[in-house]
């Protein structure tokens, strides 16, 4: 029983980070109808910034703050410089439908290579701000640490902030209206372009948080967030791509599912699990768990 609970807790920790990555993908998808594969790159760059700040100041919170700011700026920059140019230039032709995807892919490559140029391809490392030692109760050890707790709390905080922004503020209403009906939003006086930029900034910041949370005590390399991108994408798809709540639930489902499989079936199934889950979701519930009526051909 205790083993089961601790597996669950680990699953929630990992899942919380997946949820954040999924959130950042969903935020962009809703505003621009593009899956931003460059998110892994933006997040890794932000994480390296956090690494630098933590190296210099020894302060994890400062590092996280720097990553969030840089992530947000980078997100906004990508939208303004790359996406706007793209949509202005490409309207038709064989590539029109796939051009945004290809462009974000190219950007992922550019950022990864730039990170490699700046920091090298060898692993870097920064420590978690609190203990990663497992809690122990008497003789039994629960493989769950203070840091895991911090991860869950941070992710929860991000989600609460988003919930408040989206549900209670007029910025949130603008974001939602622009996502679902850009034309009606414009007719309501919303500057959809700027709102989209803000959406990308939010997404960039969220991805940065995910990157900083998943990296401590592990090897940080230019491509160490690639798998997170995939797991985030799978989580977002489980949740239906359009739904913020769906992204969170999708991340948790995937995290817990993976933890259970790791615990009971073995570690070599780690990655295939995500793929199988993705396949099952797409085949059984093509709209995702939280899908609205729309199909997947958007």
């Amino acid at each position, binding site marked *: 029983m205790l083993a089961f609970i601790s597996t669950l807790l680990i699953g929630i920790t990992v899942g919380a980070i997946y949820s954040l990555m999924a959130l950042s993908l969903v935020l962009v998808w809703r505003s621009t109808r*593009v899956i931003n594969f460059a998110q892994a790159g933006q997040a890794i760059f932000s994480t390296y910034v956090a690494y630098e700040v933590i190296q210099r100041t020894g302060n994890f919170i400062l590092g996280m703050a720097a990553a969030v700011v840089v992530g947000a700026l980078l997100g906004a920059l990508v939208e303004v410089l790359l996406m706007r140019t793209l949509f202005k*230039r490409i309207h038709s*032709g064989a590539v029109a439908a796939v051009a945004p*995807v290809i*462009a974000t892919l190219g950007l992922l490559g550019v950022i990864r290579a730039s990170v490699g140029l700046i920091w090298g391809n060898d692993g870097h490392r920064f420590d978690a701000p609190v203990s990663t030692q497992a809690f122990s109760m008497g003789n039994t050890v629960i493989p769950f640490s203070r840091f895991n707790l911090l991860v869950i709390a941070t992710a929860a905080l991000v989600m609460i902030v988003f919930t408040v922004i989206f549900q209670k503020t007029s910025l949130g209403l603008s974001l939602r209206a622009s996502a679902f009906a850009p034309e009606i939003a414009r007719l309501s006086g919303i500057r959809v372009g700027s709102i989209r930029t803000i959406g990308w900034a939010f997404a960039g910041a969220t991805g940065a948080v995910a990157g900083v949370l998943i990296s401590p005590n592990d090897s940080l390399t230019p491509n160490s967030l690639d798998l997170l991108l*995939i797991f985030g994408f799978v989580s977002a798809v489980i949740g239906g791509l359009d739904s913020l709540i769906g992204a969170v639930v999708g991340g948790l489902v995937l995290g817990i599912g993976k933890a259970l499989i790791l615990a009971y079936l073995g570690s070599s199934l780690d990655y295939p699990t995500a793929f199988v889950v993705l396949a099952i979701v797409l085949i059984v519930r093509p709209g995702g768990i939280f899908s609205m009526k729309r199909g997947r051909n958007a």
Partner: protein
Amino acid sequence: MLKKFFANGVRTRFIGTIACGWFLLLAADRVDPLRVYQGGIVAIYVIAIASVILLTGYSGQVSLGQGAFMAIGGFSAALSSKYWHLPFFLTLIVAVLAGALAGALLGGGAARLSGPYLAGITLALAIGLPNLANQFSFLGGEQGLDYSVGDPPLRFGMDFTTDKWFFWITGLAALITLWWTQNILMSRYGRTWRALRSNPAAAQLAGIHVGRVKVLAFTLSAGLAGLAGALLSMTLFYALPSAFPLSLSFALVTGAVLAGVTHLLGSMLGAIVLVAIPAYAELLANKLGGAERVIANLPGLMISTLLILAVLFTPNGPGEQWRTFKEKKGKKDRQTR
């Protein structure tokens, strides 16, 4: 007169292919060995890019995971050679079939999807499959599996190098691929794909079975990628997980965009660029001091930058710019007359 001759379908293309092959053979004897080696890689890229063009340019589906199908081809060829002791030629067939099978499986699932979902799934494959190969011991782990075509036949003479032998094999494979793909694209299937790409709804109304057509495109494309993967493994003497990194899939997409996605012959241009860039990047990196991180990352940076620039400025390939330029010029000429 000339037009009529060239319009004469399959036979002409066959003759063209033979002529190309003859030219390449002669050329291979006259350039330095490094160029011959690079020529072999170009040929492999031509096949791989053709596989992307078949899928993206003609059936309108995007696959970011062509590198994964290449890996499947490479490993299945190596496995069939190791366990079944198949002759080399047959292992290539195995690679094509294995790639095609994987493509059919993925295509079957993907036929109902499009756009971002397909892109995401294929990207997941590209990132994950090499990881997978590392985890199973029968795939040889990081060292990979031996895979070799063997020495060139003695009757070609003593100074017939391995590189030249590779070049012959890959060049022949590339020519056959181009010829075959061109024929497919000119056939009924090709027309259906184009109809599907330009207007899926209308295609469906016209009685085209969209799902089946998409699966077929996926199958053929993945089969070609499998072939390219086996050939790549051949040049490395091993089927290696690290030979099929994510950046390979990126490079193929770049090559296809540079080729102009809908122009099969453009795949040669794309392939040459893909081989030339790392070479020049290395030169440049050495000039810049030759730091390891520069050498390791400059090619990737250049290829990805090129991809973005290509998508932004010549989304339908440099060929299009040329054609519209000529059209405009033609119009002007007519007007001035």
